[in-house]
């Protein structure tokens, strides 16, 4: 007799989970697990994680985006959270941890409600109402006067960037913030909303310390010059995207030589041709040639002769950036460039920093559309982590260019939201008011985690925060250094409104999606031998 039920209808290896217990609760558990991993990394005192990914690359970081990326989450529900974090990372570039942890907390509380007998659809209704209300409250909490800002004022930029950077590199935020702010302000276009994150480059050089880090107005290329000329001041630059060599035809050509004389002459005409081209470039005033492709031996020889410095940048994007720095227009083929197409750099020089040969192109005035942050650090993983902090800073800058509104940080906003949502929940009737209440309670995890991670007594802190907020001080936050509650205007911890808004919205979106699922149908794992099996087999072979 054919077995009954869906399992019999599916292919081998398919798994089918359904119902509250099997699907919903299990999903919640999985998401909880994930959020416990990332939670301890929240905030300035967050712990670092050591993650070794499938390529055996080591990551030491407290950046949630990186952690979840490298963890290769398999569980489908947990994956929804990861996707939410990724969306946050792409949209704002910061706040991924808040997204995952908050979604995890929401789901954990939803689990409690389900066990108490509430139907998931009631919880979803409640959560949806809560997020709408949260957005409303959040808008009220915006610090007045922060709507407009001068994105070129370093103090104002640092002011807004501090909290974001501090949560990644606590204690070093002052140095990093000032570096990032300088770099960003420099490349900020006339219309700040067009700020492109890509214009702030990061060059990581091993050795030295963070204090040796600096900013270069221009570009830092991790390569050497091609020829023997290594330095050029106030030079005009010609950029050739296609390479500096003799022109080649699309059709295959063969040199036809009838006599020895011709053989000799052929080489000569070839030489003459290249010389003509290089001479044309040199006559146009260019002193530096940047090539996007190969540089021919013969061409190089003539370049040296005409005292032209030759650089090779093989990445197309890097070449485009160089064009922007120098204000040059790239030519496809080696030909005489028109004066308008030539770029200009103040100096271009090959230098050695910490044993690495780098070419630094500086452009103090004019252009100014690219700046590079040279980071120094003792190990690769420290450098990687510093880079992530800088990235967060740059992304925050971009976000503030679009929306400069800020809200109090250091858990002050969360407590205020929790408090006001609770009032809202009490005014609501129906089963979903429980869900709103739980949503409000979920905010509590932020101060709790911050306090926990800093080794403070969470209960005491939360209690005093609530009292403070109850008496009308909406800006009361945690001062982690002193372990007490303080007004954020004093501690200067401010978060961007946009970061918070998107993180909370993505988190509740993800949480609701997980709650809406009541059946999971999983296909058999596809493809290749599994890694752990292969590794085990390899280990076995060694033993033999």
């Amino acid at each position, binding site marked *: *007799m*054919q*077995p*009954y*039920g*869906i399992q*019999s*209808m*599916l*292919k081998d290896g*398919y798994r089918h989970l359904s119902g509250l217990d099997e*699907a919903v609760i299990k999903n919640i558990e999985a998401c909880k697990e994930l959020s416990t991993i990332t939670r301890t990394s929240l905030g300035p005192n967050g712990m670092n994680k050591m993650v070794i990914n499938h390529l055996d690359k080591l990551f030491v970081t407290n950046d949630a985006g990186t952690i979840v990326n490298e963890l290769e989450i*398999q569980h*489908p529900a947990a*994956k*929804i959270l990861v*996707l*939410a974090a*990724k*969306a946050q990372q*792409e*949209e704002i570039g910061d706040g991924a941890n808040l997204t995952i942890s908050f979604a995890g907390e929401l789901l954990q509380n939803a689990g409690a409600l389900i066990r108490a007998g509430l139907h998931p*659809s009631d919880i979803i209704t409640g959560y*949806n109402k809560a997020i709408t209300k949260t957005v409303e409250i959040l808008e009220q909490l915006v610090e007045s006067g922060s709507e407009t800002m001068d994105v070129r004022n370093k103090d104002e930029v640092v002011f807004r960037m501090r909290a974001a950077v501090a949560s990644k590199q606590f204690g070093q935020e002052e140095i990093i913030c000032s570096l990032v702010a300088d770099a960003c302000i420099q490349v900020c276009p006339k219309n700040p909303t067009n700020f492109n994150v890509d214009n702030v480059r990061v060059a990581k050089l091993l050795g030295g310390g963070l204090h040796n880090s600096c900013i270069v107005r221009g570009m830092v290329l991790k390569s050497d010059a091609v020829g023997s000329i290594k330095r050029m001041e106030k030079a005009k630059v010609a950029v050739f*995207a*296609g390479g500096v060599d003799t*022109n080649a*035809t*699309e*059709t*295959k*050509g*063969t*040199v*036809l030589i*009838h006599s020895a004389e*011709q053989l000799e*002459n*052929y080489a000569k*005409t*070839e030489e*003459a*041709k290249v010389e003509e081209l290089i001479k044309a470039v040199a006559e146009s005033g260019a002193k530096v040639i940047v090539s996007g492709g190969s540089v021919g031996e013969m061409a190089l020889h003539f370049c040296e002769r005409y005292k032209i410095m030759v650089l090779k940048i093989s990445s197309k994007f890097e070449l485009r950036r160089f064009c922007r720095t120098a204000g040059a227009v*790239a030519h*496809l*083929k080696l030909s005489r460039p028109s004066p308008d197409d030539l770029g200009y750099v103040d100096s271009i020089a090959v230098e050695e920093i910490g044993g690495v040969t780098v070419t630094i192109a500086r452009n103090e005035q004019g252009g100014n559309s690219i700046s590079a942050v040279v980071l120094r650090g003792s190990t690769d993983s420290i450098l990687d982590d510093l880079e992530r902090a800088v990235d967060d800073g740059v992304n925050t800058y971009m976000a503030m260019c679009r929306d400069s509104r800020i809200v109090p940080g250091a858990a002050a906003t969360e407590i205020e939201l929790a408090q006001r949502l609770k009032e809202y929940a009490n005014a609501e009737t129906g089963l979903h008011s429980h869900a709103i209440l739980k949503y409000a309670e979920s905010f509590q995890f932020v101060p709790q985690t911050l306090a926990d991670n800093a080794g403070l007594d969470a209960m005491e802190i939360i209690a005093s925060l609530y009292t403070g907020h109850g008496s009308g001080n909406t800006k009361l936050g945690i001062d982690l250094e002193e372990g007490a509650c303080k007004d954020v205007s004093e501690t200067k911890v401010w978060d961007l409104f946009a970061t918070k808004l998107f993180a909370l*919205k993505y988190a509740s*979106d993800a949480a609701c*999606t997980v709650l*809406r*699922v*009541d*059946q*999971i*149908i999983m*296909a*058999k*794992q*596809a*493809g290749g031998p599994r890694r752990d099996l292969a590794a085990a087999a390899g280990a076995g072979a060694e033993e033999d």
Partner: protein
Amino acid sequence: MSVRVLNPNAEVLNKTAALHMTINAAKGLQDVLKSNLGPKGTIKMLVGGSGDIKLTKDGNTLLKEMQIQNPTAIMIARTAVAQDDISGDGTTSTVIFIGELMKQSERCIDEGMHPRVLVDGFEIAKRATLQFLDNFKTPVVMGDEPDKEILKMVARTTLRTKLYEGLADQLTDIVVNSVLCIRKPEEGIDLFMVEIMHMRHKFDVDTRLVEGLVLDHGSRHPDMKRRAENCHILTCNVSLEYEKSEINAGFFYSNAEQREAMVTAERKSVDERVQKIIDLKNKVCAGNDNNFVIINQKGIDPPSLDLLAREGIIALRRAKRRNMERLVLACGGEAVNSVDELTPESLGWAGLVYEHVLGEEKYTFVEQVKNPNSCTILIKGPNDHTIAQIKDAVRDGLRSVKNTIEDECVVLGAGAFEVAARQHLLNEVKKTVQGRAQLGVEAFANALLVVPKTLAENAGLDTQDVIISLTSEHDKGNVVGLNIEDGEPIDPQLAGIFDNYSVKRQLINSGPVIASQLLLVDEVIRAGRNMRKPT
């Protein structure tokens, strides 16, 4: 057994065993899809072989992705997929209707009835129901100006069964407007003229209708403008790159000059073509600050791009073929296949062309076009599964609007039709039928109730209560449907719940056919393989 006719490995199920197998399979499939039905249905999560996630409420998607192996279930699934092909919706209803027919039949068969008799009854009931449907439907006049309200109601009914309410309501307007946009009098509606483009960006509620076109690629030259207003648009299918000759050609040269000459000669024909376009640009843009945009189906090589960029022309290469068609409809002008006889008349027009960059992806928006006959639904969502979910829903929504315009009628939804049809079958038709086929009619009538029943079940209501209150209202002569919020009867007309006529028609047509076929199976033979999974 004296002589074995079959391969010893073959498995044979006969008589009752075969029948029970098919019935069980039908019921099993019904169980899976049941929870999908209606606005209160739940979402299924499908996890693919590579760990990719898909969330769906759409029966069709689910059946496609599930990879069903049971032979009976496959038959039902195919019917459901056919339903989707024809009417674009109603897959879940088809599956559960067939399942319910089988369930009702099982009861009769257990009492000793022959399947053949049931099948006869089904046939009579089917014909009567189709007739009833024709009387029951609400005609809608679709003149030059279709009634937007009714279209919206139909679209909303469909979309709400696929997505959550807030988003569904927002999509309703988008879907209706887009169909009306591409609708041309005297011609059938070609839904392909609505481009569905997605961007992984922001939230699902940021989905919008673009009157114009969105292309998922950008210009490939760094110096081209990112934003241009008042643009002439040249839609063309001309290769602007050097093409190697078919034959294996080579050439001999003996000095560098000759080679240089060859290099120029190679470029010449392409450059000439580019020059013709530039000439046209200069002709139409002379003396005003209009812009010129080329959208080419074939390639444009870097030297040509460079030439165009220097003239301030925006050039897009390798556009999709279907977009070329839509582009002409949206912007006007015509698609040209040769640059030899270019005239300003063949150019289209768009008020705004701009590029939007999202990480690595580039999108080009062609907006503010005159009298668009093509448009784009731009779906946004934070992640891929949200986008896929909206995409499926939009497709169904478009189909439902198209069906309404073509059917020129709608059917009251929320289970109203099913209850009414059942009362009609039991009270009127059954009496006119002679003999045991009556039982078949009765089984059919009861099976119809599965739709309101499931709706109620998914909403967490008491099924029995609901059915009783609905039928009693119908006995009083009121046509009512189910209010899934409180389980009370409502008038679907007032609530604005309408289903497509063609969906219902197809459902009633195909359901009994497949159920009859399955009932008449009395032997299942599978050669050489065990039908059960090795456990």
